[in-house]
């Protein structure tokens, strides 16, 4: 049984003049889950988020957050949402604590509650030692944390974070991910990003959009499986010591092999084999290689990474070329 949906988007559309930025998108986010919202630049991520946070009304369609309609119950929606905009705009002349206090007042929090919550979120976002700093003097990473602290301030059931880890250094990114993972359960989180490893680490579900439409949604594993099916099977990486050309033609001649590509030459050649990579084929390849007197050094199957799936689905023209460089090693 699925948990009740906290965010419901139903056939939402947004036109900017003649340009259709978001085209009849529908999805649901269940309570307490962390959902990654992926898409290339200009896919309509921010536009969708802006409609959910009541920054702009949809051209058509409906959406509700925490049970309130974004159009007719906009104030209640905004009370129940914590939103970190993409560029984290802040007032640079204010001090960190003062800014949080101001934001608390805008949300109608009484003084005692403001004081208590500021302490809590400052600790949670590692801002404790910066409360008296001027916002303008903070580094990009600290501003980002302040933005997250602001979004958390009123302890909203729904959090919408638009690229929260942009501008953070690697250790801060890890901290931020840990924070987001901690938030799951108590809060429903919609996380927009284009860093795919982030999604695999923190999100239970992924929604991929491109050119204003939903291209795929599911758990990261489901998507990888989908990708493997669409991509016509997975790949086999083989490393053999011997003459590259001969090995290649020998392998390519085997039944079930669609294509064999030489990845690296030299005394030890490596190949990428696509086709129906089943156990029988692997055994056959091994037998062929060994039977011809070459030395089989390594053989492994490589599934499709979320990144490859993302590229395949958002940019069909380039799905053929796989990012070969260091992907297999990763």
């Amino acid at each position, binding site marked *: 049984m699925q948990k009740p949906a906290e965010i419901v988007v139903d056939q939402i559309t947004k036109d900017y003049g003649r340009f259709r930025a978001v085209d009849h998108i529908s999805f649901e986010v269940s309570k307490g889950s962390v959902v990654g919202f992926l898409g290339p630049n200009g896919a309509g991520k921010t536009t969708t988020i802006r409609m959910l946070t009541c920054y702009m009304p949809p051209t058509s369609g409906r959406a509700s957050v925490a049970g309130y309609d974004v159009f007719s119950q906009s104030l209640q929606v*905004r009370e129940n949402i914590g939103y970190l905009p993409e560029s984290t705009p802040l007032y640079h002349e204010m001090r960190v604590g003062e800014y949080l206090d101001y934001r608390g007042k805008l949300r109608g929090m009484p003084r005692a509650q403001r004081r208590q919550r500021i302490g809590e979120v400052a600790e949670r976002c590692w801002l404790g030692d910066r409360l008296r700093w001027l916002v303008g003097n903070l580094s990009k990473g600290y501003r980002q944390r302040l933005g997250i602290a602001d979004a958390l301030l009123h302890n909203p059931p729904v959090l919408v974070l638009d690229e929260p880890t942009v501008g953070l250094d690697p250790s801060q990114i890890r901290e931020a991910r840990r924070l987001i993972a901690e938030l799951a359960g108590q809060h429903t989180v919609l996380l927009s990003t284009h860093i795919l490893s982030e999604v695999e680490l923190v999100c239970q579900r992924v929604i991929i959009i491109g050119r204003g439409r939903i291209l795929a949604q599911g758990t990261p594993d489901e998507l990888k499986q989908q990708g493997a099916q669409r991509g016509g099977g997975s790949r086999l990486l083989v490393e053999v010591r011997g003459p590259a050309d001969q090995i290649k033609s020998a392998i390519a001649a085997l039944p079930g092999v669609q294509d064999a590509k030489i990845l690296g030459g030299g005394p030890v050649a490596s190949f990428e084999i696509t086709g129906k990579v089943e156990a029988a084929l692997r055994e056959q390849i091994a037998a062929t290689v060994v039977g011809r007197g070459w030395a089989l050094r390594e053989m492994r199957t490589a599934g499709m990474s979320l990144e490859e799936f993302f590229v395949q689905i958002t940019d069909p023209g380039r799905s053929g070329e796989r990012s070969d460089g260091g992907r297999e090693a990763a």
Partner: protein
Amino acid sequence: MLRTLAIAGREIKALFYAPLGYIVLTIYLLFVGLLFSLQILRPGSLADPGPMIAMNHLIMVFLVPFITMALFSEEYRSGRIEVLRTSPLTEVELIFGKFLGALGFYTVLVLSSVVFVLILLAFGRPDFPPIFTGYVGLVLMGMLMVSVGLFFSALSQHQVVAAMSSCITLLVLDWLATVLSFLLRPYVKPSWHFLQGVLNVLGYIAIEPHTTGFARGVVDTRDVVYFLTGSFLFLAMTYVVMESRRWR
């Protein structure tokens, strides 16, 4: 209400955090100080700060645009409008908060000239009621000027454009109507009813004629209504601009 006051408080503080607020304050005090020392603090003249108060509109036309230019323009330019718009605030709370903030700074500005009234106290015994009504008139005038500035700030994301357009509008409101009616009045025959009517209207929408009464201690409801309806008109237009921006 808490939200409106929070926004107003932030606006006033922002003006005092930045050099701009102090520059405006300095220019204002210089101007009023000159008026005071040349017009009032002379041997044999009346102990009456009336002329000093009455001439405030001359400088305010140039200073108020600087107070109001950033109100919305800067929010648009920096993207903070997104933060404001996604906070649980109504449009009216937002506009009114910005308006009160700028008006608050304006009031501080105007009240800083009370120093000169205190100086006058050392030399004579000025009549207090007209001074009081004079300041009331200044605050009413400030409401109109600030709402004009607020309107233009909501129109543009460039502070300079906002300041220039509100300054020109205020100048026209303050001067042109009066000047035109003075220049044209002698040539318009009393029988040309339509043109007479136009001149009357121009005379009525001018700011300057509505300020003189207060400084003399006369609180004319026509003047009060003029400033209140004028501010309401520009605040309502600001509301329309803000709402239409949301739909773009």
